[in-house]
């Protein structure tokens, strides 16, 4: 898997039945014909449904990548949600195609981030994991990640309808354990940190 180990951390896998042989022997008799997949084995989707590899990332990497997923995959996401809205009660089956597109798009974003910004990405989501998923505790790592992703993938984090300076660009995070996001001896920032497209603060 090219997506590195991050993606496979702690994810569930379809559980394969390994008891087929034994069940055969135990049941033996007329029910034996039930056993092709085992009554409790893993039944994959039928072949008429194209296969798609699940994203397979845990919550912290997803949170870290969420705005980039949103930046690239908004049309697919909107398509899917519209399909779900238009098919109440049967969207699970009608929207499989849109759902595959959503998943492929998100997986492409995670793949690209892993390819170009693995270190920054890892730093940021591990910081989130260590800080109760509080985004404001991890701004330094986030800025580095945002800059790297913008430079390499041209995806930018934007918060729609943000009031004033977008909160992820404020140089002082008043709820963080260490609100002033600069190193000892470093000159104070200007009022806001510039957007990653311009110039990230030298940290």
């Amino acid at each position, binding site marked *: 898997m090219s997506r590195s180990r991050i993606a496979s951390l702690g994810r569930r896998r379809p559980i394969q039945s390994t008891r087929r042989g034994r069940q055969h022997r135990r049941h033996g008799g007329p029910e034996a014909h039930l056993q092709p997949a085992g009554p*409790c084995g893993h039944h994959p989707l039928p072949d008429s449904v194209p296969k798609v590899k699940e994203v397979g990332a845990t919550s912290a990497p997803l949170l870290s990548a969420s*705005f980039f997923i949103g930046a690239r995959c908004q049309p*697919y*996401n909107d398509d899917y949600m519209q399909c779900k809205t238009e098919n109440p009660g049967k969207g699970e089956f009608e929207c*499989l195609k849109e759902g595959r597109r*959503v998943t492929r798009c998100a997986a492409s974003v995670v793949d690209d981030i892993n390819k170009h910004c693995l270190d920054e990405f890892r730093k940021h989501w591990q910081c989130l994991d260590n800080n109760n998923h509080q985004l404001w505790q991890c701004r330094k790592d986030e800025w580095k990640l945002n800059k790297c992703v913008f430079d390499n993938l041209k995806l930018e984090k934007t918060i729609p309808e943000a*009031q*004033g300076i977008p909160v992820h660009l404020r140089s002082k995070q008043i709820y963080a354990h260490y609100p002033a996001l600069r190193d000892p001896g470093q000159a104070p920032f200007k009022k806001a940190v510039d957007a990653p497209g311009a110039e990230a603060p030298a940290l």
Partner: protein
Amino acid sequence: MGAVCTWGFYKLGQGIREQNELAREKMWSRIHLIPLLQAEEDRDLARRHMADQAREKQLTGDNIKVYNSDRYVRPTYAITPASTTK
């Protein structure tokens, strides 16, 4: 006294506004992720449903319509593997 209170309320207002913005950020990050998570869940539900129907057909030779509607009803019970050890 008045000055202290004014300063305190000013800081309180600042804090509330920042909280609002942080909440907005969190909501949008979740909005971007929901289709992804829901799509994965839907595929799993569809897979389980189809397997369930196949299993029912195999066992009883017929699929009984349980509900008087075409709506998909999320099953209350799920069949789990008898053994999860490899």
